[in-house]
Every structure is written in C-alpha cells, then in structure tokens.
C-alpha cells in the first residue's frame, strides 16, 4: 500500500510534524521527516526538532493522510474578496453618517436663519 506509493524507497514514509509550545497555545507545523513507523517518527521528531526547543505536545501525521490544496485551489483562494464579511468592508459608513449629520445641522441652521 504505502510501500507501493513511495515506490523507490519502500522503507521510509513521510511524516509531517506538529507541536505545541504551551498548553493553551496553537498547534504549529514544524517540518517533515522520514521514518519507518509512527513510533520512530516521534523519536526522530524529538531528535530533529526539539533538542533545545520546548514542547508540551508533539503530533506526527503520515503525509498521505493529509489532503492539501492543489495549486489551482490555492490560486482560487487568492481571488476571493471577502470584504463583505469583515468590518473593514464597511469603512465608508462613518463618512456617510457624517454626511447625514451635516445635512441635519445645516438644515436647522437654515431654519434658524428663516425664523430670524
């Protein structure tokens, strides 16, 4: 199965390594490594990436268990304009409110002038 997939090198599988620095911190991608199984992947992750760096948790995942985006999919993400979902998509509101406020203020001024 996996062995066929790796073709030339049946012994190793590719693992991706993630870790947490603090209990309440996010899981962070570290790097990849080659190992014959999960247990060795954990051992090698410690050796390769945590000789000094602190970690409270380490995850290893077989690379072929990860569905990544293709380049087309990644490109399509770039095109999406999601301003309508965010507050910064509505940055013109203040100015428009001010316009109404000014109109109102001017209106009352005019009325005052008329009365006088």
């Amino acid at each position, binding site marked *: 199965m996996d062995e066929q997939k790796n073709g030339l090198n049946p012994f190793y599988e590719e693992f991706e390594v993630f870790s947490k620095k603090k209990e309440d911190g996010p899981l962070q991608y570290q790097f990849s490594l080659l190992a014959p*199984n999960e247990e060795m992947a954990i051992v090698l992750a410690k050796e390769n990436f945590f000789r000094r760096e602190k970690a409270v948790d380490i995850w290893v995942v077989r690379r072929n268990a990860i569905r990544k985006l293709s380049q087309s999919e990644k490109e399509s993400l770039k095109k999406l304009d999601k301003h309508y979902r965010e507050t910064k998509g509505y940055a013109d509101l203040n100015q428009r409110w001010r316009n109404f406020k000014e109109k109102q203020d001017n209106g009352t001024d005019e009325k005052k002038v008329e009365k006088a």
Partner: protein
Amino acid sequence: MLDHLTFDQLSEEQKYDHFMDRINRDEKIEADDWMPDDYRIALIRLISMHGISEIMGALPEKEWVPKAPTLHRKLAIMAKVQDEMGHGQLLLRVAEDLMKPLGKNRDNIMSDLFTKRLKFHNVFHMASPTWGDAAIIAWLVDGAAIMSQTMMLDTSYGPYGRALKRICQEESFHAKHGESLVLSLAEGTDRQKQMLQDALNRWWDALLMFFGPKSKQETGHTNVDKNIKYKLRTKTNEQLRQEFFTKYIPKIELIGLKVPDKTVRFDEESNTWHYQDPDWNEFKQIVSGNGPKSDDRIRLRQSSYENTEWVREALGHVKTAVV
C-alpha cells in the same frame, strides 16, 4: 493570470510567466507548486550539496569529541555535531521532496556522494590535525557558513527558507562556541597561541575558497546568476567574502593573530578588501573529491551507512509485522 482560466488550464508558457510573477512579487514557492525544471534542478543542486555538506562537516569535528580537553568542551562539541547532523536531516528532506517527481530519493543522494558526483563544501575535504584547527573551524568556517545561510533566509523556496530559519537559530550557539574556543587559546600560553596561528595559516585559503569564485573566469562555471534571478540568494560570492573580511579581519588582529596574506588591505576609496586569490584550480580539484581528506571522509560515511543497514532493515521488519 488570465482570470477565466484555472491554473491547470494555463499553457506551459503562461505557467512560467505566472511563476516568475510570483517570484518577482516575493511569494514563496512550495513543494507541490508548479515550477520550471530549471528552478527545480537549481534547488536540488544547491540544497543536496548544502545538506550533504552539513553531514560531511560533522566528520572532521567529531574526530575531536574523544580528544576534547575538558568535559564541557566534549559536551559542547557533541551537541554541535548532533546539530550538524540534524541540519543535514532537514535539508535532505527538502531535497527529497524536490527529487520525488524525478523518481529519485535519499539513496540517490548517498550514492552520488559515494561516487563523487555530488559535491560538498571544500572546507570539509581538509584535515583538522590540532585542537587549534577545531577552534578555527568552529569560529571561522561556521562564521562563513552563517553568513551565507543568513543571506538565503529570504529565499524564494518556502521549505528551504523554513529549514534555514531553524538552522540559523542553532548556528548562533555554534558561533559562540567557536569564539569561546578561539579566545581560550588566544589567552593561553605561547604554545597555544602558536597552535592557533598555525591553524589559521592552514585554513586561510580554504576559507576564501568557501565562498566560491568571483565569476566564472576563475573556474569556468558558476550558478550564482541563475540563483539570483530565481531569488534563491541575494548576494554574490564576492559580496559575502568582503563581508567576511570586514567582520573577521579586525577580530583576528585584535587577538594577536596574523592574517597569512601580506597583501590583505582595506582600500578606503573603493570600499573593498584587496587580497591574494586562492588557487582556484586547487579549489576545483578539492571539490571534485581530490582534497587531502576527501577519500577518508567519504569512506567513513559509506562504511557508516553500510554498518547501519541492519538497523534500517530491522526497523523495516517491525513495520511489516505491525501493518
């Protein structure tokens, strides 16, 4: 990019233009992204050479683990050797992902090393006969390596940049370790000072060579232009060598050592260091695997690879049994 087409629908030429646009916008290229063969080949050459150099570089240093003068030094050298091997692991991983579409893997890197098709840095073909050599290597060879690695931190290839970031963090410890070794000898007895000076004399030309030739006039061939075009690197070999002089020559003189080149001087007017070029023919010989220690080190690497084959095999069996 043409908006109505998805990436897969672009022609090869459009993909290339799209790729160069990304490079010029300083986007990072990832392993699965489309890239021209030229870029892939340049990366494989650069990164497998860098990765194997880390591993071959640990060999002259590891010779000093059993002979280190104190326990503290022994522990520090062991840590450094382990770091270098770790850097090799990171870099070979990056190279492997690039080689995969070509149907190659780590075994090919190793066999290319054993048959001398894959080159490694000139400095790791040299002997390190005294503790003074260990000090000069840790201070100046590592210092030179840090300069060239730092220069590439912003490289256009994402995985290489991330590997370099890790490597450079650990190299800052190596730099301090090297300074500490050199300062101890420079503060020591006349014999110790002389040992340090002798080591510097032995290493000077190799240090100049480390950065590579100025242009292809010296060796008939260079990849620097291509690597700059693809933003794999940002400075030329000569720029790095000049920075090395500026950083280290004053320090070398400060601790009472003499640069073994009487012509070395800083020219205020042109703002450059003048120096005696090393023998670039010798450089070509050395990196082709004909240096003083080339065969010994490659043999050592090969026998270690062969001697540990049973471990790889045994682990392979465990996996088959479990699965």
